[in-house]
């Protein structure tokens, strides 16, 4: 048995100048993971005065998790105008029945309240163990801690806030995966940033949203 190469050099710093304008992000520990030092909840919100467009590609697994179903439904209901996302790690909220759907909707609803939306419009993602219910009260409490009036609010456009968000995506990942760069189209400069996670159960076959099951709001 041999030791694999260190992968820490893939964890790169990002410059604030390369981050897209008009987004705020945060990553925090809310209590899904046992390790109190590990981030397990990320929130990203667009605060752009222009309308935000949203799109998604989703697993074609027959057992789509509750957040997968809810996010597709949100894209449909908003006609692709969602402007935020909320992500938890440590629990996949998959194969969790009706309660799982309610929990995913609750995550979306509470995140939407952060920017004054009454209807749930935040995209939702979860990752972790399959078949366990989310500790939804802990998650909702943590989302509420990001309200504009809250002293605990950590949502920020800073590079460090994005890095904390990337850490909140991680499960068995050994480094946070975040990249950002600039590009030009027609003489205009734009920025693009991305966060992803994954280390095992990786062979994705994803496609655009389909409405495939009745959902409850």
């Amino acid at each position, binding site marked *: 048995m041999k030791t694999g190469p260190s992968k820490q050099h893939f964890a790169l710093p990002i410059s604030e100048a390369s981050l897209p304008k*008009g987004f705020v992000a945060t990553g925090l520990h809310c209590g899904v993971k046992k390790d109190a030092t590990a981030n397990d909840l990320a929130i990203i919100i667009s605060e752009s005065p222009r309308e935000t*467009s949203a799109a*998604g*590609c989703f697993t074609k697994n027959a057992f789509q998790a509750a957040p*997968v179903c809810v996010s597709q439904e949100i894209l449909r209901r908003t006609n692709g105008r969602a402007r935020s*996302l909320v*992500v938890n790690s440590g629990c996949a909220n998959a194969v969790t029945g009706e309660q799982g759907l309610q929990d995913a909707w609750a995550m979306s609803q509470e995140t939407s309240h952060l920017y004054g939306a009454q209807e749930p419009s935040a995209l939702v993602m979860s990752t972790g163990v399959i078949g366990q219910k989310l500790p939804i009260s802990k998650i909702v409490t943590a989302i509420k801690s990001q309200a504009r009036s809250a002293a605990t609010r950590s949502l920020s456009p800073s590079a460090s806030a994005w890095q904390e968000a990337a850490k909140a995506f991680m499960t068995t990942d050994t480094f946070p995966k975040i990249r950002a760069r600039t590009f030009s189209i027609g003489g205009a400069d734009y920025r693009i940033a991305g966060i992803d996670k994954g280390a095992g159960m990786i*062979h994705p076959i*994803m496609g655009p949203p389909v409405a495939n099951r009745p959902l409850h709001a």
Partner: protein
Amino acid sequence: TLLGCILTDAPVTPSSLQSALTHAVDRSFNCISVDGDMSTNDTIVALANGAAAPDDIPEIDEETAPDAFLAFRTELTNFAIDLAKLVVRDGEGATKFVTVTVKNAATYEDAHRIASKVSTSALVKTALYGEDANWGRILSSSGSVQGLSVPINPARVSVSFIPSDGTAALPVLVNGEPKIVDEVRAKEILELDDFEVCIDIGDFGSQQAKYWTCDLSYEYVRINGDYRS
């Protein structure tokens, strides 16, 4: 599970963002494999908020601004490929990052299916871990793909190992005929952290697909033996 988000301050219409994302995902995240298992939660989302564009600049749209759309789609695709590769590099227990290229296939779908099959073969992946240039397993895996639009002609297939350090490739099979493998050179290449396996179908088509995979190690079993408990 794969999760990801891509955020940009470019202005893009919702339908065009979905079109560009679907194109990008098909050529990036849908071309990676660590262990061949598809999650219940795999999701990639994209948000485009237009914050870098003045109000009078219209959103990029596939129908009304095709040149701008194609430029955006190319940027998005290349960016998605970079993000997707990070996942493979961090594959549980992985010690190798391996690009599987299938070229000169009749269709992209044929090339993609062959590359996917090789990238998920447990025997290929354990050989990669053992740094064994076991091209026989690569061929066997390639040949097991059913329902290709044009069946593989074994007499036309070539296989090479291509190092990432810019040195010469090592052909191990040329037009269906095995070469005498320089095992020392093979070991040099397979000891690298990154290298490529190139499978030239030698068909009259010219379609190519790339897949990114990793080796399968003892560490993978250790990590996953008690993930739930």
